[in-house]
């Protein structure tokens, strides 16, 4: 079960043991990690699952898709080079230890 750590703006963090194949968003929401709203349930349709991927991991989480790219321009908190929609990052054993930072707000 690969681990993913969510770091809040205030520095507090929570580490979740995710199921393989589950998105970073889904792992957060189903485990009650607050700070990811995921209004559309993972359909890349709402930009409320925005996260900043830790620099050490940005190469390993894959490329931003075209639709995702458009949606990242719609996030409530500023878009940065390491911004991703967490519903588009799938947890695998290769991402064990992934760290993502939560934005100030999702809406």
């Amino acid at each position, binding site marked *: 079960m690969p681990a993913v750590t969510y770091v809040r703006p205030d520095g507090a963090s929570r580490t979740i043991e995710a199921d393989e194949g589950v998105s970073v968003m889904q792992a957060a929401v189903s*485990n*009650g990690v607050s700070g990811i709203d995921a*209004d559309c*349930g993972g*359909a890349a*349709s709402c930009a409320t699952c925005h996260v900043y991927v830790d620099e050490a991991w940005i190469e390993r989480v894959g490329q931003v898709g075209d639709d995702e790219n458009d949606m990242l321009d719609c996030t409530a908190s500023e878009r940065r080079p390491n911004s991703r929609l967490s519903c588009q990052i799938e947890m695998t054993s290769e991402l064990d230890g992934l760290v993502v930072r939560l934005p100030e707000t999702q809406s």
Partner: protein
Amino acid sequence: MTEPVVIVGSGQAGLQVGVSLREAGHRGPVTIVGDEPGLPYQRPPLSKAYLLGKTDEAGLLLRREAVLTEAEIDLVASARVAEIRRASQTVLLSDGRELPYAHLILATGARNRVLPVPGADLDGVVMLRSLADARELRGRLAVCRRAVVVGAGFIGLEFAAVASELGLSVHVMEAAGRVMARAVSPEMSAYFLERHTERGVVTSFRAAVTEIVGETGRATGVRTRDGTVVPADLVLVAIGVVPNEEIARDAGLETANGVVVDERLLTSDPNISAIGDCAAHPNPFDEGMVRLESVQNAVDQARTVAARLAGHGQPYRSVPWFWSDQGRDKLQIAGITAGADTRIVRSEEAAGRFMVICFRGGRFVGIETVNWPAEHMTARKLLAAGTALTPAQAAAEGFRLKDHLTAGVMAA
């Protein structure tokens, strides 16, 4: 914030209001009573990813059990509320238990409308609302060859896309003159008809189903008024839903196309609210009372009620929005576009996307988009900002939603 809250319904709205109450600091008992077994789950994937085997049941759960336990949200599953006793402020469950409430939230949702024709109870005739329905449907999709779908609404069309992807022949029968007639513009109907036709789905309009025919108890075809029988070994009835308003009505609460609430989502009883698919409410984005069937409405109404109970009540004014994934096409709707009398279409055909900007009585009421999520987001912002927009502006050369939004904000 220490009094007991009872929530009737364990769907999206019921689960959300429980979670939001705890997030707002409510410390009293929070009990969700649901008539389905198991934990609350997402419905949208049931007509898409789940049927295609891309998601399993665990992946549908809205929250893991541990989250509800830790939050001390008490879930009473497989339990029906038989009666609301307003005088004693309790609900009676069908197993005889009685739960006291300081505040009651009705999130009873809706149930599938039944097709009132002979043969509707034959084996092979199914409906889709619950996980149990979806499980059965998934099993049948693996062995059936010919599906007839009665009803070309969102569920019917999402299923048609899935079934044709899985190799079944699909025939959709619709009583109205176009697909998704209840909810989208004629232009959007035309687009989706073309897309479904391209993938081999056959559609009949103004089709009146008179009977489902069968042999040895199993469905073998669907007969329409003109006498034709379309062969089928799987018949999905997807003709809409009716709100579960009966316990409210029986308790003397006003019901009219759902449980009637005001802009605070409060019924005529100050201790009872109603949210989600069951709630008929005044919506600033439409005329008169509406009942919205969407994840957004369920979630935002739940948040509104939780905020009110926590002492920060605001009228429900969230921008309505909706999505439907049919095959590769993502339809999104911002606002309530049903009933639009003037529509401006803007398209980028090369990129396979377009939008229908909708007006009613001269007023901008919303935007339907296909494969254009960024524009959908801008549309929501336009609606939230109350930015005025005229058909002439929307039709102008070089019109861009983003620019109009910025201009509108500056003008205010």
